[in-house]
């Protein structure tokens, strides 16, 4: 839990303070696509306000959309209730995300690392999905998954360049 001073960190590092102070926020996101949408808008607002540039904010939004929609569509797909807990922490190397849900385990117990669906095929065979984890694997660093106490726990970093 960061101190209040850390929470009020200035949004951009100044030249005499090369290490950015930690900024952190948490959200609880209900198990519905519309709630994921609202959470993404909120997160973009906060990461932008803390001084991250549009490219970083864009990569955060794309990555989190895939991760959170996967939880709703897969981990919690048989549940009517359920919440996703998200914590975002800005560190020197980028934004660290910690995402937990109480849904079914990732099949195989690891983060899927699918190939991108092929696009070199006749029109009628073009893929309409299956892109999610391929996108996440491309944009996120230090992607870790653990199953613990009947829930899923995913952590990763979106680097800031």
């Amino acid at each position, binding site marked *: 839990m960061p101190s209040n001073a850390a929470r009020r960190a200035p949004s951009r590092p100044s030249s005499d303070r090369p290490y950015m102070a930690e900024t952190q926020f948490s959200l609880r996101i209900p198990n519905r696509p519309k709630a994921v949408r609202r959470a993404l808008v909120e997160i973009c607002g906060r990461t932008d306000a803390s001084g991250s540039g549009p490219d970083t904010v*864009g990569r955060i939004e*794309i990555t989190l959309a895939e991760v959170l929609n996967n939880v709703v569509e897969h981990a919690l797909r048989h549940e009517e209730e359920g919440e996703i807990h998200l914590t975002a922490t800005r560190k020197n190397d980028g934004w660290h995300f910690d995402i937990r849900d109480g849904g079914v385990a990732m099949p195989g117990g690891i983060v899927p690392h699918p190939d991108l669906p092929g696009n070199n095929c006749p029109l009628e065979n073009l893929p*309409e999905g299956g892109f999610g984890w*391929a996108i996440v694997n491309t944009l996120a660093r230090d992607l870790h998954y653990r199953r613990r106490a009947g829930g899923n726990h995913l952590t990763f970093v979106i680097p800031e360049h």
Partner: protein
Amino acid sequence: MNLSRHETADACVISVNETRIDAAVAIQFKDRMRDKTEDAGARIVLDLGQVEFIDSSGLGAIVAAMKQLGPDRRLDLVALNPNVDKVFRLTRMDSVFRIFDTLEDAGAL
């Protein structure tokens, strides 16, 4: 999911009057595209100028919209903002569509 349509000399232009095509509306988008393009000609241009964000479900819905046009009609894309463009590039779906910066570039003014 608000889509509007107008005709130009050689295209039917569909404008997406929404800021997001995401998992919450992907199926609706695909269905509305079917309604809007049912009687359209051989070239449909999708104007994404107002769209600030798509996720992989939205992308899938755009691919599905093209597929449901059948082999004799085509779907071109116009005015992808940087975030939308990024999703097309990351998934290599940028090579599946012809993508133009403006309606003028697309020859659909």
